[in-house]
């Protein structure tokens, strides 16, 4: 085995290892998604296809909820678009570190950019330039575990009468809690989160049921930036 082959395998292995915490989270959440989709009346093929070609946990949960409520395709697509807009900001924040990547690698990397993979990549953002293979391996491992969870959920969906006794409808909220805590490493970020959460709740109460997320995000990040500058002086 040549030296470069060894390095390649080592990079893939490191990526897979780094993805482990995501795998542990994605299998049960993917499972919950598979079960909820089945209960919501989505066909097995479509449920699986979403995990393969959409690969967006919250958007998939929300789509299943809307589908079950009889919402039309246009409204589902618009809603998932709004929910996904946050990835635009996440992708933008990683992009300065992706210099030197080929377009096709960027295309593949972006396809598997989720809240969770983003969180891991942003911890090692500075070295993304040199660790392309490791980053891609991390992403692929994450998606495989998401698909595996989905398949298990689809299979179990027929066997489970009601999801509520298992608390499966809490999977998404619990996932967000874990991700949010991981993001709150200093006081400014905690303040940002509280402010954004407060604004989102107020807007939601005021009847904004889709755009409250993006509006509160922009308001929260801007407010946090202000606090950061104000506390520096």
């Amino acid at each position, binding site marked *: 085995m040549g030296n470069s082959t060894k390095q390649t395998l080592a990079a893939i292995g490191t990526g897979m290892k780094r993805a482990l915490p995501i795998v542990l989270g994605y299998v049960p959440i993917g499972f919950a998604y598979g079960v909820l989709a089945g209960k919501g009346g989505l066909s097995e093929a479509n449920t699986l296809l979403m995990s393969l070609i959409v690969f967006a946990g919250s958007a998939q949960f929300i789509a299943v909820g809307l589908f079950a409520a009889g919402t039309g395709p246009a409204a589902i697509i618009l809603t998932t678009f709004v929910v996904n807009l*946050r*990835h635009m900001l996440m*992708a933008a924040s990683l992009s*300065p570190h992706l210099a030197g990547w080929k377009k096709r690698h960027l295309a593949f990397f972006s396809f598997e950019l989720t*809240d969770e993979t983003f969180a891991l990549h942003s911890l090692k953002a500075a070295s993304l330039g040199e660790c392309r293979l490791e980053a891609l391996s991390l992403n692929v491992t994450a998606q495989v575990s998401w698909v595996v969870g989905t398949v298990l959920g689809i299979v179990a969906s027929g066997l489970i009468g009601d999801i509520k*006794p298992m608390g499966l409808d809490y999977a*998404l909220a*619990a996932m967000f809690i874990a991700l949010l*805590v991981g993001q709150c490493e200093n006081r400014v970020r905690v303040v940002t989160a509280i402010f954004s959460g407060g604004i989102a709740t107020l807007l939601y109460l005021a009847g904004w049921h889709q755009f409250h997320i993006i509006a509160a995000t922009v308001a929260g*990040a801007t407010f946090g930036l202000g606090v950061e500058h104000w506390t520096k002086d």
Partner: protein
Amino acid sequence: MAVVTYLPRLLPTLFLSGRNLRPIIIAWLRLVPPAVLAAMLAPSLLVREGHVDLGTDNLFFWAALIAFPVAWKSKSLFATVVVGMGLVSLGRFFGVGL
């Protein structure tokens, strides 16, 4: 749905990769993840049927009060999800909440 998921993830990396953004923009972008996660989470924990409900019926809120410290201590997505779902499940088993 695949398209509206992919485009927001793709376009910034394709057009911004390697560019030097102004420091203030970078500082703002760094605050986006906590802001967006909190914005998605807060209403789902606090609001029930159009108003803020922190009563015992709102299991999601009470489970979160425990899930937050668990996430903080364990730093584990898996532990947080299992504890969170477990608490909601237990609560319902004992007839608390909806």
